[in-house]
């Protein structure tokens, strides 16, 4: 179990609003910090890094048997309900002679007494190179309960970034779920398992905790490629006046590798012509799920159809250029690692036409 392995002791529950929510209530995952520190130790031998193309699992599933989307009109519910949002960002800080430097940071935003508050965790620097890849992978595997997947292979250095990010994000999500109740918790992404980042057990456990604590998780996807009869899901709702939802019943079917925990909705929550995919725990009754969206409308600021808390969580976790410079300085001064600038072969070969990633 992911949550059991994360060194989190459950603090006493208290109801949100969270004026007293402080860092001490969230114990940092020691292994995460240790992993970060261990990764920054210098290597003596350099080895060639192997690169693998990142696998991108597609969620596109156009099922001809799915029900026609059902429009649900919404009315804001002003009942005071805490709203929280979680987002995690990672960034490539640079390259060393032996590997890759990353930084990860998470942000939790909540609204209390009409004011937004934040808790930021990080940045955590990581040095990923050939020799410590195995170690990191094994730690990640333990955390992610990946033993159940037989096709697991050691990920390449670049792919580890997204996996570390996901592990950290899931840890924050789980921790918040444990210390709050009767709250709306907003995630960035979907409620599906199957990839390394989102294991079945970890999501099941998290949703179970949420239900027992009377929390409702609303997962917003900014990017979705889901289509219905050749039309993008998010385009279907645009002609309807906001706020409204489109319920996509029976849209997904679970497979051996992928499990969908959420009922899929398309949400258009404000006047602007934006719509997002919204996943809500399918184990809770629909009426309760819709009520949760209404409470979100009544308790959070919605701009461009997107909740402000989630937008702020993204903004607060994102790294600015100055922060990257600061982290680079920390790495060179405190970790004694030399950041090198590798030539951009695309640029060298194709000049102005050499667009795309370096290498």
């Amino acid at each position: 179990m992911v949550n059991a392995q994360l060194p989190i002791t459950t603090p006493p529950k208290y109801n949100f609003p969270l004026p007293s929510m402080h860092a001490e209530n969230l114990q940092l995952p020691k292994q995460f910090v240790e992993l970060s520190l261990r990764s920054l130790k210098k290597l003596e031998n350099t080895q060639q890094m192997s690169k693998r193309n990142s696998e991108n699992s597609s969620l596109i599933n156009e099922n001809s048997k799915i029900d026609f989307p059902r429009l649900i009109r919404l009315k804001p519910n002003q009942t005071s309900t805490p709203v929280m949002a979680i987002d995690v960002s990672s960034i490539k800080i640079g390259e060393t002679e032996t590997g890759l430097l990353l930084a990860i940071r998470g942000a939790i935003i909540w609204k209390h007494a009409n004011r937004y508050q934040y808790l930021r965790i990080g940045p955590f620097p990581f040095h990923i190179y050939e020799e410590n890849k195995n170690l990191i992978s094994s730690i990640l595997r333990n955390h992610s309960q990946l033993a159940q997947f037989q096709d697991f292979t050691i990920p390449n250095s670049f792919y580890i970034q997204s996996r570390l990010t996901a592990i950290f994000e899931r840890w924050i999500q789980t921790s918040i779920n444990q210390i709050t109740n009767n709250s709306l918790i907003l995630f960035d992404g979907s409620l599906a398992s199957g990839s390394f980042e989102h294991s079945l057990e970890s999501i099941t456990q998290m949703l179970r905790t949420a239900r027992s604590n009377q929390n409702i998780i609303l997962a917003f996807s900014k990017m979705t490629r889901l289509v219905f009869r050749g039309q993008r899901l998010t385009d279907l709702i645009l002609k309807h006046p906001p706020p409204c939802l489109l319920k996509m019943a029976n849209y997904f079917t679970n497979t051996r590798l992928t499990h969908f925990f959420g009922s899929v909705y398309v949400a258009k929550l404000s006047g602007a012509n934006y719509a997002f995919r919204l996943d809500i725990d399918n184990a809770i009754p629909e009426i309760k799920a819709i009520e949760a969206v209404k409470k979100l409308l009544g308790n959070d600021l919605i701009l461009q159809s997107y909740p402000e808390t989630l937008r702020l969580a993204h903004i607060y976790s994102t790294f600015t250029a100055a922060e990257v410079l600061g982290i680079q300085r920390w790495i060179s001064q405190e970790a004694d690692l030399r950041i090198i600038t590798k030539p951009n072969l695309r640029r060298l070969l194709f000049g102005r036409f050499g667009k795309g990633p370096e290498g």
Partner: protein
Amino acid sequence: MRLYKKEGSTIQIISFPSERVNKGDYLVIADSSTGKGIIVQVVEIQYANIPGFLEELLRSCNDDYSIQGEDVDPFEMSNHIRYIQDAHLLICKIRAVYSNKGPVFASSLLPSRSRAKIKKISTERLFAQKKPNIKYLANLGETTEKNQLEVDIRALDGSLNIITGKKGTGKSHISKLLTLSLVSQGAPVVILDLNSEYTGLGQDSDGKPNRFHKQIHILTPGHNLKVTLKQLKLGVMTSILVNALNLPGTSAREFRRIWRFLEQNGNLTMQDLGSAIKSWKCNQHVRDALFSRYYTILGSGLFTDDPMQAISLEDSLKKSRVGGAVVIDLRDTSTIDRLIVVEYVLGKIVELLSRWKLKAIFLFAEEAHLYLRETYWDDIVTRMRHFGVFTTFITNQPDTIRENIYRQADNLFLFNFTNEHDLETISRASKVDAETIKSIAHDLPLHHCVVLGNIVNDFPIVVKVRKLDVYAKGHTRLFFSSKTNFREVIQQ
């Protein structure tokens, strides 16, 4: 500090919060590979253009809706991030290039960006190559790095100097400081004192006589500055009539005749002059013109027929030959009388210098536009300079001094100015670039001035002018001042 950019004579340097650098400080950029370096002066300090800083500000903007929170930073990276965010960009001007042979005023060297070491350099080290003679040292005050700025006062010799700055910034103070420094080095000084500010030079702050007491001679026109016509030369009198009182040429010619006539008869008195004009055979208009000038001169109180009342300016100046200051107190003198007095004093000085009765003289002229005729400006910087009149102009209205004066000024003592127009005027001084003047003068605190020119070896130095233990006179009379007891003043 890291070298970032060089454009012409401007160098840009990135500095970090731990490196405390002030505007006006000197830095040395040493390139060990060539053994050469550049001496630059910081003329502007800006925020370094850190990418993404706008996003940083927007994220943490402080208004009523600001978002509050906490950061869990187990690796304590925030200090490093702040270090980057608070980086400064120093805009510097190249003052000299140095090598083993010493400093050279050039800007052609391009030091290595990767190897150049940048550090602060004190004014002491700056002047190390050209040390002033200890005998002629004058302490001007404290530099930004808290060192005493001691300059060679001989740099004022043969120089044209300007002291300018906003009202109340300390112009008269440095002027007094320079005066006393010159006096203590045995130099003669004449001060045209518009507001009786220099009359306390011979007293300490408690009003008691100080060590300069016997060297300060205060002359008040109409009181202890009175002359007989016999003491005057015809040329000086004609100058007064023509330049100060605008006497036309024809009338001036008649006046010369009258003067010579009286001189030949030994009757060169004011009374006889009046009688002579009255009885002189000439055109009525000429007579009227001469009469009107005669009465103006009579009313000035500067002239007397009683030799006992007369004081010889020549004697006062001669006393100052071994160090002394003659203060011409013009406070209670009307505009016309002021012109007459200044014309007389300058005429007398030139006369004494041309006869080698005096070696040279340092003239301090406050707000000279109020008493100096148009043609005198050029005269002072060209002809009179050759006679040995070394002038220091003191003004809070820089546009009252002509552009050519700025161009020829050898030393400039510049106090704070905020007005762009004023700064533009001063920036015409040839001793330094306009950017330095505009940038440094704009931010100078009270009693701080930037010294430019020969006196500081052409290295502009910001100095906090040291305090003087002299009796401060010439204070502005205030209505709401609690110190002023008008009843007492009236009784006195």
